[in-house]
């Protein structure tokens, strides 16, 4: 599904070596954590997958395609194949939960029965009854679930989550992780960047550990220990 081929990323302005010669593959249908201390390069790795930035060296493949050579015209195509969830959820505050989802559908060129599809996605995260609520009227956990629903409403084969539980209490964080697991069970490849030791230890999955931009461990049934 995705492949990093000797990827190095240096931010030229600050001379930061965010990733150094990172090389790994995640297969279709897998669930993987990217862990590491703050500043280890997790977000950088996800940004490369979305092609919000380009690697300094090496190549990144998504679904067999070298996205470092992607033309700008093809970017929307790549991003439609990827659902993205952020720590700060990035819901649009002037739209209701349902409208946030239909917004994503419309923006990606979907026209037919958007409301039904959006409602279905909300139901899958258990928030159909909150469809009319605005983000400010939802708890943080609920906001994050709407964000996951938005990421999944277009049925992308790949879901990326950057610190999706960062703002949540442990129980709510577990709920979110279960939700991501549900998504994965239905066939979507899921990659979660987190520095939450708790999560990784309680919900053991393949774990890639970054340290100062280097991939230092790749365990099938991880655990956080650095």
């Amino acid at each position, binding site marked *: 599904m995705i492949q990093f081929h000797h990827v190095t990323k240096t931010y030229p302005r600050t001379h930061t070596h965010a990733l150094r010669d990172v090389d790994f593959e995640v297969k279709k249908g897998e669930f993987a954590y990217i862990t590491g201390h703050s500043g280890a390069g997790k977000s950088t790795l996800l940004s490369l997958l*979305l*092609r*919000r*930035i*380009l690697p300094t060296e090496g190549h990144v493949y998504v679904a067999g395609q070298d996205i470092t050579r992607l033309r*700008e*015209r093809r*970017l*929307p*195509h*790549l*991003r*439609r*194949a*990827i659902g*993205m969830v952020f720590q700060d959820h*990035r819901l*649009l505050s002037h739209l209701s939960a349902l409208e946030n989802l239909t*917004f*994503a559908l*419309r*923006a*990606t*060129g979907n026209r037919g029965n958007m409301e039904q599809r959006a409602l279905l996605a909300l139901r899958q995260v258990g928030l159909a009854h909150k469809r009319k609520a605005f983000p400010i009227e939802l708890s943080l956990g609920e906001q994050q679930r709407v964000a996951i629903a*938005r990421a999944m409403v*277009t049925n992308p084969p790949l879901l990326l989550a950057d610190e999706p539980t960062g703002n949540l209490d442990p129980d709510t964080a577990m709920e979110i992780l279960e939700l991501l697991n549900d998504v994965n069970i239905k066939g979507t490849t899921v990659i979660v960047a987190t520095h939450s030791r708790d999560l990784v230890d309680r919900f053991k999955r393949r774990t890639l550990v970054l340290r100062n931009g280097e991939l230092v461990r790749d365990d099938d049934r991880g655990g956080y220990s650095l």
Partner: protein
Amino acid sequence: MSYALAQAMRAIRANWVASVSTITTMTLSLTILAGFSLVSVNLNAVLQNLQNELQIAAFLDDGAPVNQLVDTIRSWPEVASVDFVSKQQALASMVQSLPSLRQAAALIDNPLPNTLEIRLVDPAQTPVVRTKLAQLPGVNHIEDGSDAVNTFLAINDALRVGGSILIVVLLSAALFAIVNSIRAAIAQRRTEIEVMRLVGATRGFIRSPFLIEGFLLGLISAVVTLGLAVPGYQFIVLRLSDQLAFIPFVRDNATLGEIAGLLAALSVLVGLVGSAISVSQYLREPA
């Protein structure tokens, strides 16, 4: 498309203060341009009129060989017509236009000379014909209306240069108003744009609402400008056509329609170009 249009209208309404300010700036610029175009068109009409009426008057010595002169001049290719006005006719027409002179005219000898009024095929030939006339026997002196024409030509030239500068300044003002307005609209929708990018909206989808907004602002400004300029011009023509009878006020719909169409097109173009500038400046894809 209809979604983008709805978004654009929503943006215009949501930011109505900024929208009104942009439309005002544009309308002001366009109205001045409209006024300038109308002045220029009318001045051209005056000039045309003057040039058509331009004739050369050759004042003759008493006892000059009138018939021979008329024949000679009539044979020149530059000349359209020659009329002989005798000193009696000249006096009579003078008295007719200024009746108070009647008594004076009766008391003195007729001081006016015999005159040949010459109309040319092309007014530009005036200097050539003057030279030829001066060489004829019996021609005392020559006058023509080229001074007036030259004055008007000079005004017209000045107006053209001033107008060009004015157009650049006014269109720049209109353009900056649009650029600024669309930039504000983009800034206001930063998060929306960010989300659209992340979920994979196309460039066209992201940009079209802003381009349409620029187009609409241009269109609205054009409508407001014409709404002001058309009745305004009609009013001015109505009020001034008596006082300024020598101006053949342009009223034909083809010419006026052309000016209106040009202004409207310009306005819409400025709207589109302005928003295109903003969009390409402030909606760049990183990397």
